[in-house]
């Protein structure tokens, strides 16, 4: 157990703590600004780490990453505009709660579940990272394809009663997800000869267009001389013991799902929040509260995206495989200091790795404390009259989109997407179905085709491992279950 005592002295230095605090504040603010998000915050602080000792620099970036995951929920809850892709699911219940009940409370639910998710991810990292990383390698292309299909089925659980509109939303998302150079053949698909579309529709432009710009149009059309909560009431942020008890189960489910998807490189937080939301909404005792401001609907995605941050460090540290864009940048900080993440890092850089493990828990604590401090200020955003809010948010959106790729094309793209989604929202189409289909489309398509190439066209590849068989059985069970439930429902209504 010497690992526990060994490094705590190295960890609690003034440099480390200041770095963690700086990372936390930057991450939280950038996460909260629509379009800027975690990746840009981490990239911005990367050059600062060159002059720092390795541990302090890496902890600063990890603190930024963690705090960004919570920060994304701040704008998701207050404005209905997710600051990061990983907070997209938080909009569904977070925003209604903020508008109808209490913005302070909604943020507190998010902060608490994010922190628990972060701690959970940290413990996964400390105790089982090596075996878990080896386990994750069992998930190859066929398994990724099947996981993607399961994710798409979760859309069915999310969407409302109108199955046709929901299917149209999914199709739109899938189509948007196929734009760009085809990874397997190099052919341009629906790029209209725009080089900016060759890597696909920029996720930031897509997300900001569909959530933020369309929401701004909604606010304008509802009249600008109002504010969300004019009287400044209900800004208190405390939660009662009973309220905390209510989110224990969804937070644990979210943490498990988040850590589980986080360890799979390439799936990450963007999909895990939807998995968590779908499972929790399906297993909840109050399913009818979902979509109207259910605390469980905030706790599930928020705990999952923070747990996935810890999970994503597992394959990165143990195998040198970065699982997300933010982790890839953090890998840059390692390489800059001459450290190669991979199988030897646990022996060659033992002090550093354990410093990161415990420091990661510390970043979560810092996130909670800074979050507590800033939350009351953030929740006052909704007191701001909409005429100010719309213009400020619009400018922030433009900055965020431009910062992601420095392409003016993306600004027009986001505006166009905003107009389309304004119309779709007015017609009651599900925006969340579009985004999850968009995120999953490349995972499903590329892994399906890659699996068949690997097997020289033989479909047996999808039943070739115990993991793929389990996943196929899950799909069959979910399909069978819903068909059975539907038949039963029809019988009872007709007979």
């Amino acid at each position, binding site marked *: 157990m010497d690992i526990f005592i060994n490094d705590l002295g190295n960890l609690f230095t003034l440099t480390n703590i200041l770095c963690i605090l700086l990372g936390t504040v930057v991450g939280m603010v950038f996460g909260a600004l629509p379009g800027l998000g975690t990746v840009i915050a981490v*990239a911005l602080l*990367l050059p600062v780490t060159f002059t720092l000792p390795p541990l302090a620099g890496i902890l600063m970036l990890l603190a930024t990453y963690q705090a960004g995951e919570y920060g994304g929920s701040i704008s998701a809850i207050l404005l209905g505009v997710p600051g990061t892709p990983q907070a997209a699911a938080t909009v569904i219940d977070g925003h209604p709660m903020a508008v109808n009940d209490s913005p302070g409370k909604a943020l507190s639910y998010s902060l608490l579940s994010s922190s628990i998710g972060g701690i959970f991810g940290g413990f996964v990292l400390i105790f089982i990272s090596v075996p878990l990383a080896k386990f994750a390698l069992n998930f190859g*292309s066929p398994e990724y394809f099947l996981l993607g299909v399961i994710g798409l089925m979760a859309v069915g659980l999310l969407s409302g009663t109108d199955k046709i509109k929901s299917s149209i939303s999914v199709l739109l998302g899938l189509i948007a997800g196929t734009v760009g150079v085809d990874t397997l053949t*190099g052919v341009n698909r629906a790029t209209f000869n725009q080089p900016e579309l*060759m*890597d696909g529709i920029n996720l930031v432009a897509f997300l900001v267009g569909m959530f933020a710009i369309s929401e701004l149009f909604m606010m304008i059309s509802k009249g600008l001389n109002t504010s969300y909560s004019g009287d400044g009431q209900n800004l208190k942020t405390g939660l009662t013991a009973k309220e905390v008890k209510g989110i224990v189960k969804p937070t644990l489910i979210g943490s498990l799902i988040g850590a589980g998807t986080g360890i799979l490189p390439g799936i990450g937080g963007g999909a895990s929040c939807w998995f968590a939301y779908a499972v929790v909404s399906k297993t909840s005792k109050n399913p009818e509260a979902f979509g109207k401001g259910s605390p469980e609907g905030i706790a599930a995605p928020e705990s999952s995206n923070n747990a996935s941050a810890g999970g994503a460090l597992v394959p990165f540290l143990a195998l040198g495989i970065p699982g997300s864009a933010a982790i890839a940048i953090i890998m840059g900080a390692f*390489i800059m200091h001459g450290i190669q993440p*991979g199988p030897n890092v646990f022996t060659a850089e033992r002090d550093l790795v354990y410093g990161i493990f415990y420091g990661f828990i510390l970043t979560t604590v810092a996130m909670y404390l800074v979050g507590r401090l800033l939350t009351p200020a953030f929740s006052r955003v909704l007191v701001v009259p909409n005429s100010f809010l719309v213009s400020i948010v619009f400018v922030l959106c433009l900055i965020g989109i431009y910062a992601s*790729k420095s392409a003016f094309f993306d600004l027009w793209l986001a505006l166009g997407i905003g107009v389309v989604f304004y119309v779709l929202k007015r017609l009651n189409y599900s925006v969340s179905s579009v985004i999850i289909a968009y995120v999953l489309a490349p995972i499903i398509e590329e892994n399906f085709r890659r699996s068949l190439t*690997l097997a020289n066209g033989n479909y047996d590849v999808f039943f070739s491992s115990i993991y793929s068989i389990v996943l196929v059985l899950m799909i069959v069970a979910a399909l069978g279950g819903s068909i059975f439930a539907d038949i039963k429902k029809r019988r009872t209504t007709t007979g």
Partner: protein
Amino acid sequence: MFTFLKKTATTSLAVAAMVMATAPTMVAAEGYPEKPITWIVPDGAGGGLDTIVRTIYPFVEKNLPNDATFVLKNLPGATQTIAVSAVYNAEPDGYTIGQASVAPLTIMPHLGKTSYSGYEDFELISNVFDAAHYIVVPEGSPFANLEELLAHAKANPGEVRVGVDGVFNVQHLPLLNLELSAEVDLNEITYKSSAETKKALLGGEIEAGIMPSHIIISEYEAGTLNPIVDVMEVKPDYFADIPSLKDLGYTPSQLFVGVIAPKGTPSDIQATLAGAIEAALQEPELIEALAKRKIMINYNDSETYLGRMQELDVVNKGILVDLGVLK
């Protein structure tokens, strides 16, 4: 500290003297630069190439006259062609330069995916570094070397799966060329990044994969991944014992990254920039920083850089013609 400053001053003086001696017309370069120079980086902030340029540029600044400053502009995407197009469209006044690898200059134009027609549309200032990519097999692989892998592939066409990180790119073309010259049929599996290829190799999804040398050092030391052949021309010292395609009698590919400028940039400005880059790459502090990151500095002057580019362009075009992709 003072010796360090003095050293820098002497180097800058030496460079200035050299530039003056070699450039007969000083009209354009006199007083250059008068304003910040834009350096276009074909990578997102925090990406691999971005951090390399960010490490190098202060040293180039130091070696330029007139308190030169650079403004870095990140234009990622579309296999670097967005950034290279921006250089193509910039004024050739010496105030825009760009970093570019070989793919946007010797591959993408042949695929008809660029507004410019090839490397000929640019001034090639100087090459900065080279990269090596290896065919890698996982621990416990039946193939100890390239010959064994090719022999097995010859006997079992389409059975050996080799991962690459994209189609018609710096990894895919050398692999296709190897297949053509060794007369074997490999099953090329496309991944989106080297990280994905690494995961597939470790997970046993593929028999071999092509990986950049600097991200497999830890695995090589631990024995989980084993590089068997370098597909590029230049070898890093830490893999000096591993043969390259050239050693084995096959045509190697090349992967080098340099600085380019818009066509028509005054030649004396080009010389000033090249001199500053050359001097920067000799600074011990920069050499140490890049060595730590396993970057192989390989300064080539404009002429050598152009020669390598021409040679590679012919090879890549030939592969695409042989494959029937290009008529």
